[in-house]
């Protein structure tokens, strides 16, 4: 017997055996790349999981495994969840893309949702958030707040999502402060407090008085607090323990509504493979409270910017914007298309340095 059929029949046997129970309880699995206590990315996904439990109570059962390496280990964890009767599995990191597709092939009746990837299948959806909208607000505040005109940026990996964030923040910082300069450090990690703290210290030493981060820990916040006069923004979660200063605002990922909606769809039997990319308008990207450390007029402008994006009136990448090499990317009034944004691998004009290759 082929392995696939063996698995399928085992899953079927299990489904029959526990059929009565399975019918009234929907089992939802979550695979996390970091520990739930990271205070950032995984923490927010776990909040989404708890929201699902809260919403459906006895009708759902959720399971999760944290700190799962991206590769064969992830594949095993997903298979294990599917074998144990999960109906819906959220795989919450880009590196889980191929493992998700592999496991989904073996379990056609289980629904999979992969965060931030691009490969879909009949039973695999992808979902991500337009974090760059939040970066626009950050850039606006950062450009106003910097006195040294040097803004430090802790990049995780040079992937399109992160590059979009850098570009968006830069475009909006430049708008309010033409002298602004970005210094970018690549940490090559999503979560490593020691590395992140080092990166923040290096940037502060180089004169940065605003630090933006695309990594998940609060270590940069702590480094800024120590330095005393450096502004930071919460990443992925609010990080409000560092408010009102150094943390003056934040980008919050809010997965709860999406997770609840998708779980509901599985319960109703209406689940379909979709490609979701939601932003401020849908509530997937939130802007954490802008603290009083930000001047009132700047705060007001920032909120207006947010409102314009929420209303769909403003797109952060609206021309004229040139690429780093000076060639025209977006003409006057032109708006970036999702395809280009999804695979963004270039800096906009004015940013220095190269994207690591």
């Amino acid at each position, binding site marked *: 017997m082929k392995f696939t059929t063996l698995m399928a029949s*085992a899953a079927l046997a299990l489904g029959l055996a526990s059929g009565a129970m399975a019918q009234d309880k929907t089992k939802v699995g979550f695979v996390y790349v970091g520990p739930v206590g990271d205070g950032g990315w995984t923490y927010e996904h776990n909040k989404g999981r708890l929201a699902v439990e809260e919403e459906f109570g006895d009708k759902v059962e959720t399971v999760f495994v*944290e700190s799962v390496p991206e*590769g064969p280990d992830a594949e095993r964890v997903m298979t294990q969840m599917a074998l144990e009767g999960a109906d819906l599995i959220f795989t919450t990191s880009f590196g889980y893309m191929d493992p998700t597709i592999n496991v989904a092939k073996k379990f056609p009746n289980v629904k999979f949702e992969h965060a931030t990837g691009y490969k879909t299948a009949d039973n695999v959806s992808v979902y991500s958030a337009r974090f760059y909208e939040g970066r626009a607000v950050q850039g606006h505040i950062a450009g106003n707040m910097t006195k040294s005109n040097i803004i430090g940026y802790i990049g995780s990996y040079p992937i399109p999502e992160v590059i979009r964030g850098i570009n968006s923040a830069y475009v909006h910082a430049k708008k309010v402060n033409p002298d602004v300069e970005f210094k970018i450090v690549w940490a090559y990690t999503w979560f490593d407090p020691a590395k992140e703290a080092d990166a923040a210290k290096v940037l502060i030493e180089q004169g940065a008085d605003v630090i933006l981060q695309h990594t998940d820990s609060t270590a940069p916040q702590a480094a800024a607090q120590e330095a005393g006069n450096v502004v930071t923004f919460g990443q992925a979660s609010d990080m409000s323990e560092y408010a009102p200063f150094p943390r003056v605002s934040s980008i919050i990922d809010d997965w709860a509504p999406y997770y609840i909606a998708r779980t509901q769809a599985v319960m109703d039997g209406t689940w379909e493979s979709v490609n979701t990319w939601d932003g401020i308008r849908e509530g997937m990207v939130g802007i954490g409270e802008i603290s009083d450390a930000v001047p009132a007029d700047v705060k007001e402008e920032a909120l207006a910017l947010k409102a314009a994006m929420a209303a769909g009136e403003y797109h952060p990448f609206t021309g004229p914007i040139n690429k780093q090499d000076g060639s025209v990317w977006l003409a006057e009034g032109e708006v970036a298309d999702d395809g280009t944004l999804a695979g963004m691998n270039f800096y906009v004009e004015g940013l220095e340095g190269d994207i690591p290759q």
Partner: protein
Amino acid sequence: MIVLEKRPQPSKAWSYATPLVAVVATMVFGGLLFAILGKNPIEAIGTIFWEPLFGEFAFYYRPQLLVKGAPLVLIAIGLSLGFRAGIWNIGAEGQYIMGTIFGAGAGLAFYPMEAWFIFPIMIFAGAFGGWLWATIPAFLKVRFGTNEILVSLMLVYVAEQFLASVSLGLLKNPEGFGFPGSRNLQSYESAHNAELIAGSGMHWGVVAAFIAVIFSYVLLNRHMLGFHIRLTGEAPRAAKFAGVNPARLILFCLGLSGALAGLAGMFEVSGPSGVVSIDFNVGYGFTAIIVAFLGRLHPVGILLAGGLMALTYIGGEIAQSQLGLPAAAIQVFQGMLLFFLLAFDLLTNYRIRAARSEVA
């Protein structure tokens, strides 16, 4: 009062018993830890050790034990040869990475050609990559007397930078929409280290691990070189008189352990993993050090230790999702294993005695 008294000869009985005692102690104290976390300790330990082997889904987990254990055993076998001779290669993780890059790189260089010779070339390239990376500390030690522990360890971080670089540049999938990571070797037939029998978990890396165990056993027990390795570790002065060339031994032991680590990386990337990515390495090279010691640096012991380690990984994941144990608790549990092993090792060389009270 209790005193420790050095044994005139290391106790044979204890040297075999300590791994077992360590496992039992780990279960006891691990169980205590789980109980403090509010879980039923019997259930938790049972889940970790029983479920993967005899549970409902053992048909899936048993092959996975091979997949998870093979790289550990392959690397640990190489390390054990050096460790026996007092040559400390701590950087197997880096050699594993370089084997991955070389092996996958060699395969992808031929893409999309399909030919039977591609996979053998990849095997050779993977072993070469690991050998090359391990030969750097070996050469520096022989030539300049540097410390191989430090050099090999530091080279891990250099290798990680290489890995990030090729994932973003040289080996990046041109059809990957700008995302880092190579093409998936699983969908490139000539380069795919597929399961030999579907669903068995047996891929070429597992075969290589078993061969390495046998080869190492024969080498240590039936071959002059193996005798030299053991002699150098146990009595360096005697080894000198016996005509052992230390430089050659260093180059051999580090080179071989590097080549095996490189092979492990190559089999992993072409098989279970498929993709060269920035976070490809998950610590096999470091965990293999634990496996080598847990297996008493003996080939058969290492085979068993590799299986045990794989069991705690897989069982640990099951315990996480079924019982909601935090990942950190599983890691502490694994750490306890090495801790107790080293602690009870004391009994091999020392015995505990109640000291006679001094009579005035």
